[in-house]
């Protein structure tokens, strides 16, 4: 069974949390990824270089482990994992998912140096590997939530302070009202976007487009020609495969405004320009046309500005200023 998640690009993955698997618990650092639906961690038998620098799961040390056995292959934008399915008790904070199926990778390509051991997918079950019920669905069916929602607050300034919450929304993490946007199809967390503008001019997505709301990547991706246009409008120049801007431009550039469901979501230059030592880079990245000419990907840069709620029951996403 092959599952493809072309969007997930671990190069820019930044926010990780801890989960435990098995009895007694073995701890892993995972990405809570709304762009995919599978949970996997490296297996102790994995011999790929990436597995030597990450925590690996030892099934023999867990009394609650059951081998499902089905082989899995998951393709990501910049890597592949291959392995088999198992089942065990998985803990996320106080949540306990019993008989939770998950992937154990035996081979990993392209994950060397990634700041996480595995991925915990939070997309819809329709894009999960056959036979592997996503952890959110398993917890939901086990009655773990009063409301089948999860939400992200991504801190702007500190490495700590970011949270993912399950089963409801803590209103202290956002200002004003949540604006609800229906998902375009119940497979990915994909929403319709009306347009993208700067200085009152539409600069991309002029006839509407689709946007993945993806916690598994940190930047904003779009079709190369449109992204190049946005980068040119901010006088960015290509330097070593990245668009560099003058750091002083942060004071003068306008916000980039994403209009979603008729509501403007401004992204200020302080958010879309990142400073790294003495250079400043635009976070707008091209290359998404391989997937579809009309798709954008809103990653952590966007989600740091906007608290996000993912409502599985009503198949909608809520956004409000963080």
């Amino acid at each position, binding site marked *: 069974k092959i599952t493809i998640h072309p969007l997930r690009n671990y*190069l820019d993955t930044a926010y990780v949390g801890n989960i435990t698997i098995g009895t007694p618990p073995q701890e892993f650092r995972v990405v809570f990824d709304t762009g995919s639906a599978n949970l996997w961690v490296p297996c102790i038998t994995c011999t790929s270089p990436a597995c030597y620098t990450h925590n690996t799961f030892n099934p023999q040390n867990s009394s609650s482990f059951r081998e499902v056995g089905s082989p899995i292959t998951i393709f990501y934008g910049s890597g592949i994992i291959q392995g088999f399915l198992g089942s065990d008790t998985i803990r*996320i904070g106080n949540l306990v998912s019993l008989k939770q199926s998950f992937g154990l990778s035996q081979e990993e390509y392209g994950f060397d140096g990634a700041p996480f051991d595995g991925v915990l997918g939070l997309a819809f079950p329709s894009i999960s590997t056959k036979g592997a019920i996503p952890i959110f669905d398993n917890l939901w069916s086990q009655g773990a939530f009063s409301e089948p929602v999860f939400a*992200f607050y991504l801190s702007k300034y500190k490495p700590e302070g970011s949270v*993912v919450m399950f089963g409801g929304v803590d209103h202290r993490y956002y200002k004003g009202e949540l604006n609800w946007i229906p998902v375009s199809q119940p497979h990915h967390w994909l929403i319709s976007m009306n347009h993208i503008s700067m200085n009152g001019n539409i600069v991309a997505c002029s006839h509407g487009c689709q946007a993945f709301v993806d916690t598994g990547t940190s930047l904003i991706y779009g079709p190369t020609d449109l992204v190049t246009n946005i980068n040119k409008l901010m006088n960015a120049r290509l330097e070593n495969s990245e668009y560099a801007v003058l750091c002083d431009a942060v004071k003068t550039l306008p916000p980039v405004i994403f209009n979603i469901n008729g509501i403007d979501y401004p992204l200020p230059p302080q958010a879309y320009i990142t400073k790294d030592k003495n250079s400043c880079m635009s976070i707008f990245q091209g290359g998404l046309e391989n997937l579809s000419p009309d798709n954008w990907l809103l990653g952590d840069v966007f989600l740091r500005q906007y608290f996000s709620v993912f409502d599985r029951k009503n198949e909608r996403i809520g956004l409000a200023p963080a």
Partner: protein
Amino acid sequence: CVVILPLKKMKTLRETLREKNLLNNFLEEQAYRLSKNDS
């Protein structure tokens, strides 16, 4: 009954590669690998 789990912001692989001046090589290699995958 909201369960809140802390997340930590890690240095991304892009930032690490950029620091070591290896980003360009990585992106070129990745583009080559992806073009092979596409075909």
